[in-house]
């Protein structure tokens, strides 16, 4: 019984570690800010959440202690990390950070109200 729990905890921890590693690789390998924000906000969130789920299962099975703080932490990361990614990408877009040169769609540049303060170059 204990061995099964340990296996489940190990799977969650390794899964979280794998997602975090994919995040780091994505931050190095992807070409521009927007794709990197995509990598960082999605897979890092999932990685941290997997590790925290592993933490909950570990403490429930080993010590019989259910940590509600970790549940709150999971909820908090789930809510805030995508918003952080959104805000970074938004700030980058309005600071005229260029899209990757192979990007094909930029719908926000057609909205005159949004991009009025600065002129965006479509050829970048």
């Amino acid at each position, binding site marked *: 019984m204990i061995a099964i729990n340990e296996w489940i905890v190990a799977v969650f921890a390794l899964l979280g570690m794998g997602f975090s590693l994919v995040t780091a690789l994505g931050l190095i390998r992807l070409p521009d800010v927007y794709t990197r924000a995509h990598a960082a906000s999605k897979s890092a969130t999932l990685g941290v959440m997997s590790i925290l789920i592993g933490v909950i299962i570990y403490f429930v099975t080993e010590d019989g202690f259910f940590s509600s*703080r970790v549940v*709150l932490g999971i*909820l*908090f990361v789930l*809510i*805030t990390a995508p*918003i952080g990614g*959104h*805000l970074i990408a938004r700030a980058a877009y*309005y600071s005229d950070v260029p899209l990757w040169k192979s990007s094909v769609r930029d719908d926000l540049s057609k909205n005159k109200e949004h991009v*009025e*303060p600065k002129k965006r170059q479509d050829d970048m």
Partner: protein
Amino acid sequence: MKKQAKKHTNDVILESATSFITFIIFLFAVYLFFAGHYTPGGGFIGGLVTASALVLILLAYDIKTLRRILPFDYKWITALGMLIAVLTASGALVFNVPFFTHAHDYFNLPLFGKTSLHTAMLFDLGVYLVVVGVTMTIIQTIGESD
């Protein structure tokens, strides 16, 4: 510069997230404050976490909104915290024991059952109010000076 800062205020995602994330942070601050006697926590970090919730409101909205939500001068909160701390400490003098002597007893509260109430918590409340007051005074003073 000021004109540019006025544009792009369409922060619906940040604002609507702030409006309920703030409550989670407040709740965590209250938890930290009351947990301080037996587990890690206490007045200092409880105050800092509360101040961080207020700073989140300040970031998502602006300084006027925060002033409308909590319409008081944070310097007075600092003073109130100091007053509570000093009164708690000097309350020991009334009972003819040295300054800063704390007392505790067990009470049967309606919802919590047998609870130990300690005068150190009142001192911690003073620390909490001082930390919130000082942090918010610093941040609002820096934020206002254009």
